[in-house]
């Protein structure tokens, strides 16, 4: 797994903006992204809780990363989210840190399927559940480096 971590650690600008960070100490399954509470990503619900949108965004990000971490993923293949569903089970106070775990349950040359969960680190309370489908082999874009283009 560790061989993939270097490329995984390249956070997109929005990941930086909301403070996502990969948990490199996690042993699986899948990958874990940690998200610390911060007023910038909050809503006023219950006096300040993680906004549901930022939980969705982190699940989306973690989902993409866990595909790149999957044994059957071919390095350099570009992908795009096809759909994403998130159930919101409870609120999480901004004083907490969320652990978002995403596992790629199936992958072929066209599609990848992901299940994800978000829980409060200190209590283990489940906050959200997600499932996502990704299209594989999409255009890497005009600005992709040589290393990121499909072989």
């Amino acid at each position, binding site marked *: 797994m560790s061989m993939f971590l270097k490329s995984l650690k390249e956070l*997109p*600008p*929005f*990941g*930086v*903006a*909301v403070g996502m960070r990969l948990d490199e100490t996690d042993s699986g399954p899948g990958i874990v992204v940690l998200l610390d509470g911060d*007023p*910038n*990503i*909050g*809503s*006023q*619900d219950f006096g300040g809780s993680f*906004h*549901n*949108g*930022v939980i*969705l*965004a*982190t*699940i*989306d*990000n973690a989902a993409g990363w866990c595909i790149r971490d999957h044994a059957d993923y071919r390095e350099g293949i*570009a992908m*795009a*989210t*096809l*759909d*994403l*569903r*998130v*159930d*919101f089970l409870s609120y999480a106070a901004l004083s907490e840190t969320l652990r978002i775990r995403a596992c790629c349950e199936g992958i072929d040359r066209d599609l990848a399927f992901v299940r994800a969960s978000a829980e409060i680190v200190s209590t283990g309370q489940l906050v959200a559940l997600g499932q996502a489908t990704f299209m594989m082999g999409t*255009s*890497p*874009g*005009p*600005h*992709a*480096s040589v290393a*990121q283009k499909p072989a």
Partner: protein
Amino acid sequence: MNEIDNIRRQRLLDEITKTPYFELLGVQIEAFEDAPILSAMGADHLIGNINLPALHGGVLGSLLECAASMMLLDKNPQGVTPRLVNIDVDYLRTGRPVKTYASASLVRQGRRVASVKAQLWQEARDRPIAIARVQFLLDRTGRTDANHG
């Protein structure tokens, strides 16, 4: 803009101001039709793929959720913020880092649950870049609305 739209605008502005995450997204109130039209600029910090470049899928999902909750607030001015139950987003086109519009419509509002459709578009409204089905739990006392009871 007429007086009623000004009142509607102020109500939504208040909600944006007290929701820091909406300010991070740069949510603006664009216009009012039956439902509010919101927008966000394709700011650099909202990008999820720097190679395309494209807006982060989570940004698009967040804008859809924002449009859905703001539409409910606009229709139910006396109510408390409804609780988001779930959201199901279909990504239809690449979200380029340009100005993006968001709106939502009520499919059905019952006594406890509201079902909402939301959509995002950029250069043309008939070419949505993402759509979502969004479900909300309304406050337990139930909420009545003359137009959508």
